[in-house]
Each structure stands twice: as structure tokens, then as C-alpha cells.
């Protein structure tokens, strides 16, 4: 394929002597520095694979002379950020949240850090936007089962609810009235609950339900359905229902009783993480 170079008639430039199907190649030589640059990139490339992890082996890869690893870089970065935040984290861990001003650096650190704590530990039940779900309280509204002050939220986060691993966990349990009341009494009580929450109801039936309500429910939920926070007993006279406020849902709850369990995060989170998530929750729109 390679013939002796000859001079091209039209351009007056020598050919390289290469020919493919009658097509010849003119020899417009590249500058030599370009060639050297090419060699340097090759040397650089080889050096790179020696300096950095590169060649795959059976179960790992060459480590590289300068000991770099992406994992190590992440660890370094985390350590650097931790060191940078150590002071403000310490300040938050020792802070009295109720007295912490909004413009304190620990406050901003807590709110943004708390959002991360919430996303990794709380959002599974309470939702990524903290709006909850059936059986899992909405943390954005103005209704709190156990209290929405900083102090109460922090206690709930730390000790949890109805769990058996923390002696200080908040505890209360509604009995299943299906075994205690008759079916008629339960229907009457449900109708009465509908009436005090301002929903459509059968007045005659609701009037009959007042007595069973006062006898069985008022001790925890209050005479007027206003709830009792010390017992974690929900308000029945508002628009917010943890398990649904329809006639069917209320009847089911009276029959079978429903309650949720929350783990004690004090056993898993650091002090500053608990304070952070408390601050975060308190400023979502419902904090008291």
C-alpha cells in the first residue's frame, strides 16, 4: 500500500506514499512540538495510573503511590465539616432551646441540621414533608397529642411513645370498647363524637350517646372532647383526626382502639441531633 512518495500536481505538495483505492494522502507535516506534546500526555497518563488507584486486580485495584481514595476524601471532608461545626454543635447540645434566640448561630445550625436528622430518622413514618399519614401525626398543624412546645417536643423525641425500651416513654392506651359497650351504645357514642366535632350527624342518636361518652370517654378526652395532653388523649372537637373522622373510622376506633408507637431517639441520636430535630419541628408551622 505504501509507495514511494511523489509530488502532487495540483498542490505541489509531496504525498506520504499512502494510497487507499486511488486516494492519496498529502504530507502536510504536523509540527514536531505537537508530537512531543502527544508523548508527554502518554507519559503523564502512565504516571497518573501509578500515582492514583487505577489497575484492576483480582479483588481490588492498585492503590496508587500517593494513597488517594475517593472514600478517604469523603471521610476527610466529613471530618473537616465536623471539626468546623464542632463549636456550634457543642453550643447547641448545651443550649436551653426555649431561650435560644433565632439569630443565634446554633439556631440556624439546628434547623438545617434537624432537617437532615428528620429526613434520615423520622420521615419514614411522618413523611418527608412532615405531613404524617393515617396513624402518624402531622407535625405541621396546630394540634399536638403530647404538646408542641420545644420542651414537650424534645421529650417526645428523646423518650418516644409507648415503647418498652425507655421507662420514661410517654404512655397511655385506649381500651377496646367493643368488649365493654354494646353495639348500640358504640353507634350512639360515635354519633355524639360527630356532633361535638361539628360534623353532620343524627341529633337524636347523638343525644343518646352523650351518657355513654361521659361515662366511658370523658375521663381521658374531656367532657367537651377537648382532649387531655397529659394523657396523650386527642381532641375530639376539632377538624384533625389521626385515624380518620368519618362515622366508620370513629366506630372502628371505639370498637378496637388504635394507638401508635414511637421509638426513643435518645438512645440513638446525639444530644445535638435531638436538639436540632426539635428546633426543626418546632419551626415547621405548628410549634407552640
Amino acid at each position, binding site marked *: 500500500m505504501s509507495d514511494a512518495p511523489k509530488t502532487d500536481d495540483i498542490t505541489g505538495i509531496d504525498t506520504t506514499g499512502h494510497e487507499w483505492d486511488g486516494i492519496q494522502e498529502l504530507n502536510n507535516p504536523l509540527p514536531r512540538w505537537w508530537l512531543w506534546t502527544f508523548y508527554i500526555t502518554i507519559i503523564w497518563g502512565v504516571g497518573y495510573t501509578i500515582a492514583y488507584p487505577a489497575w484492576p486486580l483480582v479483588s481490588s485495584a492498585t492503590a496508587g503511590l500517593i494513597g488517594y481514595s475517593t472514600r478517604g476524601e469523603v471521610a476527610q471532608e466529613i471530618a473537616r465539616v465536623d471539626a468546623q461545626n464542632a463549636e456550634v454543635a457543642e453550643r447547641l447540645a448545651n443550649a436551653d432551646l426555649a431561650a435560644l434566640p433565632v439569630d443565634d448561630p446554633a439556631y440556624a445550625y439546628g434547623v438545617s441540621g434537624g432537617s437532615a436528622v428528620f429526613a434520615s430518622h423520622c420521615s419514614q413514618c411522618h413523611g418527608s*414533608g412532615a405531613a404524617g399519614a393515617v396513624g402518624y401525626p402531622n407535625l405541621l398543624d396546630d*394540634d399536638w397529642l403530647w404538646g408542641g412546645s420545644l420542651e414537650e417536643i424534645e421529650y417526645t423525641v428523646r423518650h418516644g411513645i409507648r415503647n418498652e425500651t425507655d421507662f420514661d416513654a410517654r404512655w397511655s392506651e385506649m381500651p377496646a370498647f367493643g368488649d365493654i359497650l354494646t353495639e348500640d351504645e358504640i353507634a350512639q357514642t360515635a354519633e355524639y363524637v360527630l356532633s361535638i366535632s361539628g360534623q353532620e350527624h343524627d341529633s337524636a342518636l347523638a343525644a343518646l350517646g352523650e351518657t355513654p361518652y361521659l361515662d366511658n370517654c370523658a375521663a381521658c378526652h374531656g367532657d367537651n372532647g377537648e382532649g387531655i395532653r397529659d394523657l396523650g388523649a386527642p381532641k375530639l372537637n376539632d377538624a384533625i383526626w389521626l385515624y380518620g373522622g368519618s362515622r366508620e373510622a370513629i366506630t372502628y376506633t371505639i370498637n378496637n382502639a388504635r394507638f401508635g408507637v414511637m421509638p426513643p431517639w435518645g438512645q440513638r441520636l446525639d444530644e445535638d441531633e435531638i436538639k436540632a430535630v426539635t428546633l426543626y419541628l418546632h419551626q415547621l408551622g405548628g410549634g407552640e
Partner: protein
Amino acid sequence: MSDSSLPPSLYAAREPIFPKRVSGKFRTLKWWIMGLTLAIYYLTPWIRWDRGPNLPDQAVLIDMAGRRFYFFWIEIWPHEFYFVAGLLIMAGLGLFLFTSALGRVWCGYTCPQTVWTDLFILVERWIEGDRNARVRLWNADWSLRKFRLRMTKWIVWLIISVATGGAWVFYFADAPTLLMDLATFSAAPIAYTTIAVLTATTFVFGGFMREQVCIYMCPWPRIQGAMMDEGTLTVAYRDWRGEPRGKHRKAEGAENLGDCIDCMACVNVCPTGIDIRDGQQMECITCALCIDACDDIMSKIGKERGLIDYLALSDEPLERAGQPPRPVWQHIFRLRTMIYTALWALIGVGLIWALFVRSDIGLSVEPVRNPQFVTLSDGSIRNSYALRIRNLTGDDRTFRIMLTSEDILRINVETDGPNENHVTVPANETLNARVYVTARPQDPAATQEVTDFRFWVEDVAGEARESADTIFNGRDQ
């Protein structure tokens, strides 16, 4: 053609070029442009511009950390980056315009590679002498004198290079402060790195690579073909007048020869080392120094100037037929250049218009979608919104946040200020405010799926206000 059986080398060493000094109108013009462009580059960061106590007083400043671009009375925020994009498009169209009218006039007169190469050649000529002396020095063996001249030249080049690399970083920080920091070795490492890299590129590109950058590294010579046509004025040789070239020795019969006396003046001054008499070629940056060189010779031998001149291919048949070329304005005002000019001006006018109508309050509203709404214990429906309020002035300002439909929606802004729904945004900053909007249970907004409304942000001390439309999600989702 060689009889050797060895294949020819596919690589060639750079041929050294020793451009000769020349004088003339284009050289003079180039000196002025060189002085002007270098002065703009080196001095711009040192111009001060008072913007009040809260803003920097550097006239041209690219504040990367603060994400602001200051240009005299104009301040560009990141969300106004379209101004920069518009300027870049204008620069591109301007390049097209000039190239279609005057060929590679950018390359020949204003390209930094040309300007700094010119400067480096000027230094070289001061220290080592003009072309002949430099050729002799190049060919001479190493001696103390050659070493001394080379070292002097390189040191001066290096000083210029450091100043060039150094000037660049002043565009990105307060120049006097940064200069002090640089001198006391307390500036950021990136500043030193940038200076080092730009010093190296200036030194190598201006001193040693020169035309190699234009020929092998720059994409523009390859693109320019699309911008030029037969009506474009470029530097060219009137071969119908010059050929056949010859030395005009009396014995040879000068009457049969053209005007070109083959003195090589045009080749000797060329910074890319080509012969313009071979016609238009990719290596030519149209610096027009060969025109000056040839005109000088033509004057000396008493012939008409303009053997090498700005010419258009479309005039060649006219001139060959003995007719005068078309006037210059006909080459410059062509449909193509007018379209480029119109596009260029359109964008320019658009940018200026945008600059004058832009508000000094920036407002963007993002409804919180997770969840779409929250039911409160009294049955009210609450939506929350993330408002970004930008204060594009140099003074702290207090804004009142309002709604258009306050009869159905109540607003509550989370602030610690004394006044309800007021927020204070510091000078030249952005404030993120969370705003709650609530509809009472019986309000239509609470029961409908979606209600449109408008946020207003009003400067309590002035008349400025800004609005943004958004929606309210009711419980009927």
C-alpha cells in the same frame, strides 16, 4: 521528489521567523491599538467607582464568592446572567460582522495572541536588534554575548508575563487589597496558581509559540472560511500588476517585468512567515504589515503604491480588465454585513432595554408542595410558600408582603420584626422568607381545588413594588 526509499517525515520542526521592523499607516494603527488594548487590560481593575458603603468600589469586578458582577453603574446578579450571555452573543456576531467585511481583522489587530506577540517582538528587537542581527544571533554559537542577550530578553518577557498573569486576578478581587496580599504572600493559593499558569502561557505563547498558536491551536482560522466571501476585503497581492516578478536589472530587460521587484520585504516583515504573493492562505492573520512594507518599497522605486493591498476577490476580474475596483463602502455595506449589524443591534437594544426596565426588587415564589396544604384544628386550610426576596440596591430595605385577595386569604409571614408581614432585606442580599397563607373553612379558597392569587412585595419607604403569581391549594384535591 526523493529517490530515497525512506518514507518522508510526517513531522516538521518550527521554522524560526524573524519579522523585520516596518513603518507605515497600518503599523502605526497597530501600535495605537496595542497601546489601547494593553492599557484597558492592565488598568481597568484599578478604576474606582463609588457605590456607597455596602458595595465594592471597583469599577469592574467579578465577585465569584459574592456571586455579583460589577461593571461601573451596572450590577449583575446570577439570575441576570442573560446579560452576560447577550454580551457574548453580541461579541460573536460582532466577530462575524468584522470578518465578513474585513477578513481576519480581529486576528491581525486585536487578538491577545497578536498584541502580546507584537509586544514580545518589540522587546526582542530592542534587545537583540532587527531582523538581520537576530538571524546572525540565532546562527551564532553560544557565547557570553548571546547568553547575555537571551537572558535579558527572557527576563523582560518574564516580567511582562508576570504582569499579564497578575493583572488577570485583579478582576476577581479588590485590586489594591489583593496586591498587598500578593506582595505579603497572604493571598489565596488560587490567585498564585492563576498567575503562575497565565504567566507561563503568556511567556510561552508570546515568546516561543507565536504563529504556531494561530496555525495549529486556534480554531478561528478554520471557522473564518464560513464568514468570508468574495466581497470580503482581505490582504492580497495584485499579481496581475506584479507578475512576472524580477529584479529589474537593466541587462535583463525590465520592460517585460511586472511591478514586483522580488525584494522579499513583504516576506521579511510577516509575523507568520508566509509569502502573501502565494494568495490567500490559512496562516495569514491579515495584520497588513506586508502592505506597509511593499508601499514603502514602491514609493522608493517610484511606482504606484498598493501592489499589496486590502482587496476583494470580486474586484479581481474588474482590475484584470483594467477597470477600477468597487469603492470600499460597497464592500462593507453588503446584505450580509447589514444582517449581522441588524442582529447585533437588535440584541444590543434588547439588553439596554432590559437594563432600564429591570426592577431593583427581585421576587420569586415557590409554593411548598409537600404537603400541598395543612388542615388546622379549626378546619382552616393553610398553604406555605418559600419567597425569595432580592434587594438589588446598596441600602437595607424593609418590605411589606401582601396578597391581592385578602378577603378570602389571610397572610402570615414568619418574621421577628415589630410590624406584621414586614421583612427587612440587607443591602445587596437575598432573603428567604416562609410565608403562610390561610383560608377559613368556609372560604371558597379552602374548598376549591385551586385559587389563583398574587403576592406583592412593596418597599415601605418608597414606591417600588414587585409581584409574583402563584396558586392556593384547597382541600378538594
